[in-house]
């Protein structure tokens, strides 16, 4: 079976010269759920933007379902890879939440009642149905996050890349998110600083630091390695016991 995502020796520098990725190698199988961990500035967001063809690598390759990302394939690949941005303000741009959620599916050709049903369903899944008619820029931080999640879920992508999806959500919303995501039949990459969240949702963890992948192992195993965690500014939160479950 071809990997859902394959990244080969990916390098990238931002226009101001900062090297954010210095040779990333990664393969994620179909239907896997992988947590992408690492300190601030490690290059996690930069990698996520590459998976959707939003940044162009300086060198290296990205393959989605065996298909190399290129000028010709990018439109197709964007339909298959759904990306939730780290900052929901970047993600929401239509006059109302419902229109924003409808934007993606409408681009895929959905119209009328079918479209309405998809929008209602996506909002329901994140528990944000009552936000439908509100303008996104007038929402609270957590409400924006929910709306941003819904816009991507509505496209029903095969691969979901979520950049800190739980941040800003209240604890009940966060749990609901875990349940929703766990129930989806997709390949999942979740960037997070919340190790319990990672443990709950993702059997496998990849740690990035300094623009490279520095560890790749089962999440439970990783969390049992204080040396490795400490080396990459990771640690279990106050009051957390791994033995609990």
């Amino acid at each position, binding site marked *: 079976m071809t990997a859902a995502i394959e990244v080969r020796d990916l390098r990238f520098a931002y226009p101001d010269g900062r090297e954010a990725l210095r040779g990333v190698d990664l393969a994620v199988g179909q239907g896997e759920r992988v947590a992408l961990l690492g300190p601030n500035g490690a290059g996690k967001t930069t990698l996520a933007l590459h998976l959707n063809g939003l940044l162009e690598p300086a060198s290296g390759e990205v393959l989605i379902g065996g298909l190399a990302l290129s000028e010709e394939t990018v*439109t197709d690949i964007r339909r298959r890879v759904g990306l939730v941005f780290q900052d929901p303000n970047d993600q929401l741009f239509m006059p109302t939440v419902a229109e924003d959620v409808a934007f993606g599916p409408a681009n895929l050709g959905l119209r009328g009642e079918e479209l309405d049903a998809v929008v209602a369903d996506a909002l329901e899944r994140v528990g944000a149905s009552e936000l439908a008619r509100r303008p996104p820029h007038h929402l609270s931080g957590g409400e924006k996050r929910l709306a941003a999640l819904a816009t991507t879920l509505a496209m029903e992508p095969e691969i979901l890349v979520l950049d800190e999806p739980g941040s800003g959500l209240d604890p009940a919303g966060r749990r609901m998110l875990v349940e929703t995501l766990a129930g989806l039949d997709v390949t999942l990459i979740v960037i997070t600083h919340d190790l319990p969240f990672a443990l709950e949702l993702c059997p496998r963890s990849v740690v990035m630091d300094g623009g490279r992948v520095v560890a790749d192992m089962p999440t439970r195993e990783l969390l049992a390695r204080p040396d490795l965690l400490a080396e990459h500014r990771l640690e279990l939160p106050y009051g957390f016991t791994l033995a609990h479950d």
Partner: protein
Amino acid sequence: MGAGHAHALYVHEHSPIHAASPEAKVAAVLLFVLSVAITPPLQAWAFGVYAVLLASALVVGRIPLRFFLLRLVGILPFILLALMVPFVGSGERIDLGWVSVSREGLWAAWGIIAKATLGAGAAIVLVATTEVPAVLAGLRTLKVPSVLVAIAGFMIRYLELIADEMGRMRQAMTARGHDPRWLWQARPIASASGALFVRAYERGERVHSAMMARGYTGEMPVLEERETPVASWLAVLAGPMVAAVVAVIAVVGS
């Protein structure tokens, strides 16, 4: 310069003008403004006809007079300017008691004021009865190059984004003890305005990324199909056609 958010330009109403097809309305406004512009100022009666036409558009379009007048303030500088012309203009002078004014200048002032008011008024009626995306769609139908329409569309979308960035910036500044009451305190604003440009620019890029990430390929998805009956074209153009006839008579007769 009058601006603000685009939605402040539109009057939410249901009227025959609101319902008319945008391309017909754009064409009508152009025809009307053209007629006004070529009419010699001396043909005062023609301007009377135009004013009646414009006023009836206001009534039919249910545009509140107050709204209309407020939107008109944009031309105020030119009215003030025009009011000066009779005093500084050359040529034959007329004595008005304590001052003397130029006769030619007086007519010129009248012409500038009348044409500016009618021209701006027509544009105001258009956007008061037509939502921005519809006007853009109308322009596209009228064969305005699509690149220009697309730039205009993004520009209007991003205006709100820039206003938003500026609002955030102002709030951030006040929260940290900035009290821009004095001119010398403008320095951080100037320094920040350069950063604001890059910031707005990059925010625009990221929003565009977000759009592309959700399958955007250059055209906003049209959620409702619109049709343009021929009757609507004729109805909308009726007024401006009267104006055009008037203009021709006025030009020939002068």
